[in-house]
């Protein structure tokens, strides 16, 4: 994206709209909004070039609070709507705001197709593992056997693993962050935005009304260091209270090792964002009880799509149109 010259320096405040925020006080959505408003001024993109597109859900209220262009559309279709916008207006900076129901339940198809097409947009999935706006039914990311309003005896279905799903659909940028980690979140949003191609960021977001504490193991002092694995490109995979655990690859199988006692740091798995096989192994941690949950950029590769950044309006001559109108074969009646 070409950054225009002489943009007045903007502040977070400039990105606040005049609409009163209507999320439940304390909702994780508000924390994410704040980081977005903090981030945007640093990107040097004029406000009018930014568009937020959302579907329906609590999280999808987001565009109303951003003083940019925005569309709050219909359930599950933000990805499809943003596709048309970006195809025709590659000059715009497009952010898609969606929920776990919006993106992965009703909107699952557009989601995977957008990743396949790899348009240069940013997809932020606010995953609270529940339907917030409709007051507490399970979503495709709710844990198996979760008791909710619509599953009084627990759900039968196992949840999607959003990371493997995105990778499986051909995503070129896949990352995870969490509402409570302000700095991390901002960095990931920034990296997603910097990526050319579709960036997919799953953000764990607490819905304290209908699914409180779904991610508390990653935010609670007592557990977070053991439960969460923060990835950095080129750095070894370390976690635990004192980073005492590491992960190494034994052939193709990941193993947790006690760094202090058993292994030298050199043997550890060094995070390589560009390694698709490793990305898949990382994303499969989700399906285990033993491995920590990875946060950060799990995968990033250059897009396979020829991304046409500028699509200038062509000047077409009257002759060209007359030729078009006349078709291949025509005749004159005198």
């Amino acid at each position, binding site marked *: 994206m070409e950054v225009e010259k002489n943009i007045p320096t903007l502040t977070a405040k400039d990105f606040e*709209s005049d*609409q009163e925020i209507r999320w439940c006080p304390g909702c994780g959505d508000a924390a994410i909004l704040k980081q977005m408003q903090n981030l945007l001024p640093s990107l040097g993109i*004029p*406000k*009018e*070039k*930014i*568009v*937020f*597109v959302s579907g*329906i859900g609590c999280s999808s209220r987001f*565009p*109303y609070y*951003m*003083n*940019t*262009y*925005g*569309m*709050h*559309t*219909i359930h599950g*279709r933000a990805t*499809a*709507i*943003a*596709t*048309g*916008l*970006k*195809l*025709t*207006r590659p*000059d*715009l900076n497009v952010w898609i705001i969606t929920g776990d129901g919006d993106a992965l339940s009703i909107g699952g*198809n*557009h989601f995977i*197709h957008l990743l396949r097409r790899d348009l240069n947009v940013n997809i932020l999935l606010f995953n609270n593992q529940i339907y917030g706006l409709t007051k507490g039914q399970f979503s495709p990311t709710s844990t198996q056997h979760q008791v909710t309003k619509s599953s009084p005896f627990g759900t039968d279905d196992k949840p999607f693993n959003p990371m493997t799903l995105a990778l499986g659909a051909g995503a070129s940028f896949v990352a995870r962050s969490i509402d409570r980690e302000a700095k991390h979140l901002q960095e990931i949003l920034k990296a997603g935005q910097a990526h050319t191609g579709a960036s997919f960021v799953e953000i764990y977001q607490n819905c304290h009304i209908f699914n409180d504490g779904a991610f508390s193991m990653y935010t609670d002092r007592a557990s977070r260091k053991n439960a969460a694995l923060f990835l950095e490109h080129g750095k070894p995979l370390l976690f635990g209270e004192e980073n005492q655990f590491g992960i190494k690859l034994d052939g193709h199988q990941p193993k947790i090792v006690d760094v202090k006692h058993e292994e030298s740091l050199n043997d550890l798995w060094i995070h390589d964002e560009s390694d698709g096989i490793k990305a898949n192994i990382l994303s499969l941690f989700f399906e285990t009880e033993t491995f920590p949950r990875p946060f950060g950029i799990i995968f990033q590769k250059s897009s396979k799509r020829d991304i046409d950044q500028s*699509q200038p*309006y*062509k000047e*077409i001559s*009257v002759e*060209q*149109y*007359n030729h*078009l*109108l*006349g*078709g291949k*074969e*025509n*005749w*004159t*009646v*005198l």
Partner: protein
Amino acid sequence: MKTITKVNKDDVIIKFAGDSGDGMQLVGNQFTSNTALRGHDLATFPDFPAEIRAPLGTVAGVSGFQLHFGSSEIETPGDLCDVLVAMNAAAYKSNIKNVKPGGTIIADISGFDKKNMRLAGYQETDVLLVNSASTNFTFFQVDITKLTVESLKEVALDAKDKDRAKNMFVLGLLFWLYDRSFESTLAFIEERFSKNDMVKNANSLVLKAGYHFGETTELFTNQYELKKAVQSPGKYRGISGNEAIALGLMVASSKASLPMFYATYPITPASDILHFLAKQTKTFNVQTFQAEDEIAAICSAIGASFGGSLSACGTSGPGMALKAEALGLAVTMELPLVVCNIQRAGPSTGMPTKTEQSDLFQSLYGRNGEAPLPVIAASSPSDCFFAAFEAVRIALAFMTPVILLSDLYLANGSEPWKYPEYNALPEIKTRLLKESKEKFEPYNRNEALVRNWAIPGTEGMEHRIGGLEKKDGTGDVCYDGDNHHHMVKLRAEKVANIAETIPLQELSLGELNADVLIVGWGSTNGSIRTAVKELLLEKKSVAHIQIRYLFPFPKNLKGILEKYKTVLVPEINNGQLVKLIREKYLIDAIPYNKIQGQPLNVAELKNEILKYC
């Protein structure tokens, strides 16, 4: 040398029919363009089998092409044909019931051997192709396949390829019968097979062989001649409905100085619009997008519309059903959008290769809540151009989605079109707002209740819109009951205001105050016109209007309808327009419905009308 009688004709209907692989569409198209260049008026209609390639020789696999041409105005491809070209028994079987009494059948007898008879479902003992008083047809039995192969004995093609050239023999023969030159087809062959000399050569040889066969065989002693049609001076071309829609959308968006975005999902019979437009994307300001489904197609179009493109979608019934929810969003967001529904026989998957006009109600009412939007229909292949142009104009002038109704019959049918010069077409105004003194409010309106259109990239006009009810003016989300009532009424009124900008309804044939008024819409125009014209010649008191603007209706419609004792509404559905008229004007309009997957039969329609005059 044989004596040739020149026979004069006013009009002729020819049906070319053969197996899907027999190249009948090509023969039809070549004969058609030759006919057009010759200065006759014409109308054509191809009918494809439902299957891609149904088993060879079966009735399911028959592909046909009907051409009606003549020296006066031609409105339809015609009910019954004068000449049937039947390349095999199956083609004969599925078309013989549509030959006029006294008609001519030219049959390739190679296609009537035992095997073909069996495949067509005949008994070996069935006797076809025999001139008899009872059938009242004239049969010409030609071993076209054999003659073709013979004419190629010098050519080193394999047997299968030689066989394939037999359509050129038919074409040559018909050129002779109608006293045509075959130069146009020679030129076509030259271009089409420019990369393969052998095939090019073979096709030319066979074409000429067919022509000379006609000239020399004793079988044919008549040649048919038709006068040129009296056509108004100008430049003409042949056009199908789908091509015309594509052109109309393209030219209109250019007239509005907007790039065009066509988002769709393939579906019969709309796909050809996509195929046509996709070819233009490198040269014109057109982008095509084949979405993952119809929901994504319309949604991407809405996104593009928000971004400042003229967005259009094309689909057919089942796809239209899937667009219902998003159409409602476009109504609430008040964004311009053209959705073309190329109707086919329903319900559900129905008969995808047969025509129908049964999606009118879906267009008007197939959304949740009160979501009014304008609906217009095209009435002939070339009229699709103007209907599309008008749909774009209305969408942009009124910031509204518009539904444009066509159908399979218009889509695939074609006719000569006196096409306009680009400069002769009007400019189209948009509601684009580039700057504003006051604070921009997306739902501020002009006198016609139309809002402004500020697109991303426009500084200082950042705003958010969505599908929740909005406060008029600011566009903020609003749950207030009075505002909602106001907005529901306003959206209806805005659409009603379109009636101020559309032409008044014109009487198409007949007099005001006749006994019966025939009210049609869409593709029935040709059949109805033909029927009414014939009845007028018979001095019957009948008149005809064809309604393009189905919602809102032209302002003078009521006045016209009230002039007639009887209002008869023929439709290829179970009665839809008729209900709209009855409801709105409390007139006891009478439905006439034939739902057989094909254009209305003129003779049947005439009989129906005669009941009332």
